[in-house]
Structure formats: structure tokens, C-alpha cells
């Protein structure tokens, strides 16, 4: 229907339409346009399609353009326009964010937390997804339901006890942690987030693993592979797209998360505070460095933007697979 090019036949037909439907009436531009819409509704639908596409493109992408305008406005940022930066253009903000605050350290912390959480989630969800997708055992449905139930509790319902737990000084941890507590360590963030995003990965991997034919697993077992070997050397590699999907979704979710990320550290870079504290750090108590905030936002959004461009099929299939499972 909404092909960008119209088939010549259709065009000819439209032409005939117009000639037949519109005898020699002298209409204004708008009236003529409206008349053509009425005589040929397909045209109206196509116009609506282009208008809507344009609208969605502008609303989703314009904020990033404007952030960039702020970032290159330098100290005169209060003169920034809607479409133009303030003059003179000063791109210095993109280096200043790394000197005024250790923004690279914040981003590194976020990357580390997201990577560790992704690896942990993929490993645990692989085992669980295999069990739910391929094995038959008593209590399968109730356990699956229990996993689902965890995904709808609000993080706030876990927060008070977890905060208390992570602030407890445990003697055993004293040699590894500075004061024996998990607060201000990456664990305090990636552990809760792994648990929070585990159910989605279990559902995605469950779907993919259950689609591998039984024969392949049996063949590996006959060859003498161990049970775990069959899982990690046959089923997981064959479900590589599923594993990538779960991995990409977990990484983006952890990198983007706010609730635990903002509450489980004191906000200092050396204490493993994630990227969000860096961005907010430019909003000081006495003065706000708008251009630095904008520059920091652009730098921090780039990794996920690249990930979306590279892995958009995975994201789409993962989100829909995870949700349709319900």
C-alpha cells in the first residue's frame, strides 16, 4: 500500500480517476488537494503515513540534536537556540567532562557492572532455561510461575532489606572489602540487577533451547559428552542468537538502570558509582554546567545507541519473545 514508488498502472489509473472525477472546476490549491484526497483515498493514507513517519522521526531524534547544540555552546550556553548553538561554538565540553570529573571512570564503572551482570545472568539463565525448556520434572509449572512472579515486584520492595544487608559488616569479607560490607562495591549493584533481569533472560533462553532438536543432544551424549558438556558445547552454541539477544537486553537494562544504581553507592567514582552519578555530578549545588551535562549525556548514550544500531533485530526479537511468553 505505502510503496515509495507507485506502480505505473496505478498511476495511470489515478490519472484517469482525476480526469473523470474532476471536470473543469477551478479550485484553489488546498481545495484541489482535498478533492484529490477524496477521489483517491489511498493517496490520503499515504500522505498520513509520511506525515506520521516524519513526526515520529523528529520527536525521537530531535532531543539528541538539541543536546548536541547545548554541548557545543560552551560557556554561553544560556543563549542556545532551539535549532542553533550559541556563538561562538566551543566543542571543549567533550574534553572538559573528563577533567572536571573523572567521567571516564564513571562510564568504566557502569561498563564493568553491566558486563559482570550480563555474564552472571547468561550463565545462571542458561542453566535455568535449559531445565525449563528441555527437561520434564515435577514442579516445573509452579517454579516457572515463581520466576515470573519475581519479575513483577517493584525494586522498592527489595530495597530496605538489601540496603541493610549490604551495609552489614561481615567479618568474612573483611580481607577483600574495605570495611567488610558490600556498600560502595560493584557487587551491591550488579547482584540486585542480575536478579531483577534474570527472569527475562530465562524466558528468552528457554524458548530458544526448547527449539533445538533432541537428536542433537542425544548424539553428543552418545559420543561421551557429559550432561553439562552437552549443554554448553551443543545447545548453547546452537542457540547463539538467543544467547546474544538475552545478553544485549541484559546489558542495556543494567547500563540504563537508575533505582539500585543510584542508591547502592555514595556517588563517588572511586567507590564504583555508575555513570548516572557522573551525569548528575555536573549539576552542582551552586552552579550548573549545562554544556557539560549535555556532553556527558551524549558520551554516555553513544555505547547503547551503537548497540541498538548493531543489534536491533536481537532487541526486537528478544523483547517480543520475552513478553509473549508471559
Amino acid at each position, binding site marked *: 500500500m505505502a510503496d515509495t514508488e507507485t506502480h505505473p498502472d496505478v498511476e495511470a489509473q489515478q490519472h484517469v480517476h482525476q480526469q473523470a472525477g474532476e471536470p473543469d472546476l477551478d479550485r484553489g490549491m488546498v481545495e484541489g488537494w482535498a478533492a484529490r484526497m477524496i477521489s483517491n483515498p489511498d493517496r490520503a*493514507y499515504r500522505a498520513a503515513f509520511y506525515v506520521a513517519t516524519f513526526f515520529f522521526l523528529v520527536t525521537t531524534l530531535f532531543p539528541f540534536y538539541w543536546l548536541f547544540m547545548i554541548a557545543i555552546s560552551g560557556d554561553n550556553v544560556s543563549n542556545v537556540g532551539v535549532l542553533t548553538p550559541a556563538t561562538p561554538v566551543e566543542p571543549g565540553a567533550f574534553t572538559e567532562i573528563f577533567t572536571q570529573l573523572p567521567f571516564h571512570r564513571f562510564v568504566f564503572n557502569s561498563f564493568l557492572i553491566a558486563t559482570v551482570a550480563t555474564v552472571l545472568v547468561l550463565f545462571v539463565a542458561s542453566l535455568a532455561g535449559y531445565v525449563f525448556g528441555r527437561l520434564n520434572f515435577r514442579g516445573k509449572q509452579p517454579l516457572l510461575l515463581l520466576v515470573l512472579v519475581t519479575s513483577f515486584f517493584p525494586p522498592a520492595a527489595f530495597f530496605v532489606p538489601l540496603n541493610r544487608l549490604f551495609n552489614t559488616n561481615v567479618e568474612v569479607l573483611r580481607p577483600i572489602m574495605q570495611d567488610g560490607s558490600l556498600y560502595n562495591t560493584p557487587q551491591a549493584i550488579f547482584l540486585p540487577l542480575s536478579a531483577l533481569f534474570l527472569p527475562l533472560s530465562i524466558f528468552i533462553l528457554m524458548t530458544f533451547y526448547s527449539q533445538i532438536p533432541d537428536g542433537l543432544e542425544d548424539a553428543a551424549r552418545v559420543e561421551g559428552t557429559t550432561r553439562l558438556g552437552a549443554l554448553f558445547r551443543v545447545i548453547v552454541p546452537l542457540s547463539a542468537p538467543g544467547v546474544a539477544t538475552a545478553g544485549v537486553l541484559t546489558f542495556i537494562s543494567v547500563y540504563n538502570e537508575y533505582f539500585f544504581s543510584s542508591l547502592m553507592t555514595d556517588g563517588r567514582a572511586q567507590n564504583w558509582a555508575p555513570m548516572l552519578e557522573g551525569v548528575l555530578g555536573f549539576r552542582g549545588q551552586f552552579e550548573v554546567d549545562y554544556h557539560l551535562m549535555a556532553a556527558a549525556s551524549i558520551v554516555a548514550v553513544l555505547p547503547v545507541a551503537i548497540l541498538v544500531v548493531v543489534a536491533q533485530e536481537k532487541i526486537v526479537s528478544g523483547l517480543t519473545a520475552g513478553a509473549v511468553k508471559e
Partner: protein
Amino acid sequence: MASETPPNESGTRLLMRPLNRLEMLSEQAYAYVLLLPAAILLGAIAFYPLVRTLTFSLRADDVFGADPFGKFVGFDNYIELLSGQALIPNQFVDPAMNEPLLRQALIVTLLFAVLSVFFETLIGFGQALILNQDFRGRRWVRVAIIIPWAVPVVIQAMIFWLMFNPTIGWGTDFMQWLGVFGDNPLANTSNSFIIVLVADIWKTSAFMALLILAGLQSVDRSLYDVARVSGASPWQQFKLITMPIVLPALLVAMLFRTMDAMRIYGVIDASTGCEQVPTLTCLVISSFNARRWASASAVAFLTAIVIGIMVLFYIWQFRRTEGGAI
């Protein structure tokens, strides 16, 4: 399966012994062993804290004590919260809202959930209808539509905070020109609510769009040919073919979005602040920061209950549409 176990190598290698034992287990026991990591993670980070939240919420606040929990008081916290006598910190500056705090938070959260899910469904449907067409550049339009979904919460908040900042933003001028906003919308409860709402719609419509798109693509195209031959207009095709088939996917998407909207926190905390838009999760954090940990636990658990009720409502609706109309 256990009969395929390789012969035991007389237990020489200590490392191999647990792996060998894994080979001998029945399928039932093997399933439980593989579920162990997931059970530990979810148990320690989700179920245990959830139970602790409940037990914490049954105790009195002890703001000045070394341990912030006082004696056991049963359901008093809940009764005080629901009857509006609770001593949770007074964080809401808008004097017009003379409601008790919890009721304010409940109203704000529910209103936010209903409005955001409503607009996201509308916009998501529009986006999904566009992505369902075949046109050149479709891949890039899809990337553009997904990108807001992948933006970290803090940057989403930053964009809208900057946009409505009186010093540099153009959003305030624009909205004043429309006659909607006052001078400083970020310091006004109702204006802030609209800002947060728009921010959420901007970010998460894409999620709706992807789930609806999955539903749209499961529609058999030949149904449209039949409809066109029998002279149905595109609107009739949409109403009679598209809508009934997409409805289950749509309900699932709405369920996910509602659950998410009920726990809104990050975008508020980083942009307008919890003083302006007090949601339930905001209330948990502000009570927590005032060392009213028991009240915080009670609010958190209430949030979980409210979300649980919403989920049951959706499941009931889902059952009804599955069994009745279709």
C-alpha cells in the same frame, strides 16, 4: 539417561567426582541441581528481601535508635498509612493537595500509570503501523524509534530537565505560549507531572510499538485481500481484522507497561525531584532517608500489593477476551 555414564575412573581425580555424580542423577534431581544458581540468586536478592520487607513493615519506626526498627506493632503501619496519620516525611510542597501523603502518592502513581499507558498505547500503535509497512529505509526508521527505549533513565531525565529549564530550555516558552505552563514548571507539581509523563511516553512508546508490531506481523495478509475485494475501507480492515488479532499482544504489552509505570522513580528523581511528583517509590525512598525504615517497608509492600492487584485485573481481562469475543 544415567546408563550412558562413562565408567567411573576409580575416583582418582577429585575434581571429576562431583561432575561424575551429576551424570548419575535422575532427570528430576538433575533439574533441581541446575536450578540451584537461579534459586540462590532469586532467593537471596528477591524472595528473602521481600519477606524481610514484610516483617520490617510490621514493626515501629525508631528514628533515633541505633537500630531503626522498634517493637512489633502488627499492621499499625498499614492502618496509619491508609488512614492518613502516618508520620512519613512531609515532602510535598504543593499546598493545594491536602490529601494524606499516601493517598497523594497512590493517586499520582495510578494517574501516571493510566495516562502513560494510554498515550503509549496510542503512539505505540501508530509507530507499529508504520513499521509494519514495507518501505525503503524501514530499518533506519526502526532504529530511530527504538533508540529512546535504549536511552539510560538518567539521560532521559536530563533531556527533559534541560528542555524545561528556565535558563536554557525552550520547552517552558513553548508551553507558556500554549498557555499551559507557569514560569518555572520544574517547581510546580502539576506541570512537573506533565513533564515526567511526556518523558515517559517519549522513552517507552517504542516498547509498546515493538510488542504490537509482533502482533501485527502474525496477521495473515490474505485476510486483507479478502477484505479489499469485499470493499472494506482501510479503517474497517483495521477494526475487523487487525484489532481482534492484535488484542492479546496488546493486552500483554499493556500489562508490562503498567507494572513498569507503577514503579516509576528514576526519571522523577533525576529531573523534577520527588517533591514535585510524589510516587509510591519516591515515598519509599524519602521515608527511608528519614530513617523511617518501617514505614518505608510498609509503603514498599503496599506498592507490591497494588501492582499485584493490577496484574490480577489484567489476567482476568485476558481470560475474558480469550474465552469470549474471539
